[in-house]
């Protein structure tokens, strides 16, 4: 894996010229947004002045301001569209290639909904599904792909309309180093943490999931709950060393993580609250900070291969 020092060199020697060009583009986008906002709010102010005398107070304030905000947001989306795309192709793709030349990047691609649903990690099927920033390729023996996803479930309509986030963050799919046929799911443990042994009983009664697998590693058991169609296979996959590796990965990532082992592949869902790999419009680009953040987000995803030791192939699968 590349170090931060190497990244700094790469930033100075390779990225800098492109960043300077993009910085010009960003400034013009930024200015356009500001001018549009100023114009829109100016018009809104004039409308308020004219109508305030003979119209009810509240609507005459709300409608113009609401209109100005909408115009600004629309302008923001319109002006930054091209810039975002240019930025991703110039910078994010370069960082992906810098991490490993065997990787490819598509700013508009994402893990398909069927792959997401078939991972069996999340129960609720999303009906609002989008994503971007697909990275794919082969690292050593391991085929991998990951992208940012935002999966939501919307129910009801009108006043009863409710939108629930099923998953938001980074979704990784990798070829696992052992053969298996069943389905094993590793989820964050909330019930046992709260209720101890009684919590484990609740998990046993969870009819929506497969059989509960009780593992020997107490630290792992505290953090995760495992369900599987096959008790032996679950332990074949979750060897004592893999349990440790998953724990270490969780602590390193500092995020909520879900895993599943289905169809000879491992799926890892790392929850993020912020958007990933997006350029900032209101801050300068000529700063190492954001670049380091993109790099760290990407390398922690690519690093799953190493973290879970997926390249070790001493089993029949090679």
């Amino acid at each position, binding site marked *: 894996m590349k170090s931060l020092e190497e990244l700094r060199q790469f930033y100075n020697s390779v990225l800098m010229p492109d960043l300077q060009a993009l910085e010009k583009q960003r400034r013009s986008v930024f200015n356009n947004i500001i001018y549009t906002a100023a114009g829109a709010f100016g018009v809104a102010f004039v409308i308020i002045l004219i109508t305030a005398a003979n119209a009810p107070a509240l609507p005459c304030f709300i409608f113009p301001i609401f209109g100005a905000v909408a115009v600004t947001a629309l302008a923001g989306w319109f002006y930054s569209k091209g810039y975002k795309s240019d930025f991703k192709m110039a910078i994010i793709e370069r960082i992906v290639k810098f991490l490993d030349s065997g990787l490819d990047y598509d700013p508009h691609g994402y893990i398909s909904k069927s792959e997401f649903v078939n991972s069996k990690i999340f129960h609720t099927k999303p009906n609002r599904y989008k994503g971007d920033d697909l990275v794919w390729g082969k690292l050593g023996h391991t085929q991998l792909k990951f992208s940012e996803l935002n999966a939501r479930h919307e129910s009801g309509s009108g006043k009863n309309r409710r939108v629930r986030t099923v998953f938001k963050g980074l979704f990784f799919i990798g070829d696992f180093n052992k053969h298996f046929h069943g389905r094993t799911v590793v989820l964050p443990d909330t019930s046992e943490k709260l209720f101890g042994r009684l919590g484990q009983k609740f998990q046993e009664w969870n009819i929506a999931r497969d059989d509960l697998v009780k*593992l*020997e590693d107490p630290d792992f058991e505290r953090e995760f709950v495992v369900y599987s169609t096959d*008790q*032996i296979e*679950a332990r074949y996959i979750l060897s004592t060393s893999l349990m440790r590796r998953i724990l270490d990965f969780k602590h390193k990532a500092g995020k909520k993580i879900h895993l599943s082992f289905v169809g000879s592949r491992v799926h890892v869902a790392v929850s993020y609250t912020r958007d990933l790999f997006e350029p900032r419009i209101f801050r300068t680009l000529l700063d190492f900070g954001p670049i380091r953040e993109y790099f760290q987000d990407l390398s922690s995803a690519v690093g799953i291969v190493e973290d879970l030791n997926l390249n070790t192939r*001493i*089993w029949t699968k090679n």
Partner: protein
Amino acid sequence: MGLWIVLGVIVVILIFFAMMFNTLVGKKNQVINVFGGIDALLKKRYDLLPKLIVAVKEYMKHECGTIEKITELRAKAVSGNLSDDEKVAIDNQMSKMLGGIMVAVENYPDLKASENFMHLQRTMNEVEEQISAARRAYNAAVTDYNNAVEMLPTNIMAGMMGYKTKKVFEISEEQRQDIDTEALFNK
């Protein structure tokens, strides 16, 4: 009114006992089920062994003794009529012998490079890892069962059903020590 209450209490007690009974039977069957899994994997290992023996025999001239011992153990294992304890004992001995063979391979570069052997080695690795997973699954099932047999309130029911605690797989003293290949082959 009083009669209804008495009847109600009796029904609740009966349901409670039925639940305990089912829990215990379920846990006992889980142990049997997982042991069946171990058995199936051991059989898989015994099916693989003749291939492994043929592959290594012509190269490993100095390990004839170990190879013979493995052949003997295999013959004993597949002869049938073995108790669960005997199966476990043979499995333990076999693991030790195979571990020794896999380490000794380092001394035979020709063998190590043979594609046939490399494939066998990977398959053996897989089976060994599956067996170790099955042992862990067995231990988990036994611990679950033993907890039910010893803990309140199911222990009362277990006593009435004549259920006793079961032993978990233990790693023998020999297995805990690193395999001393020299000693193994110089026997």
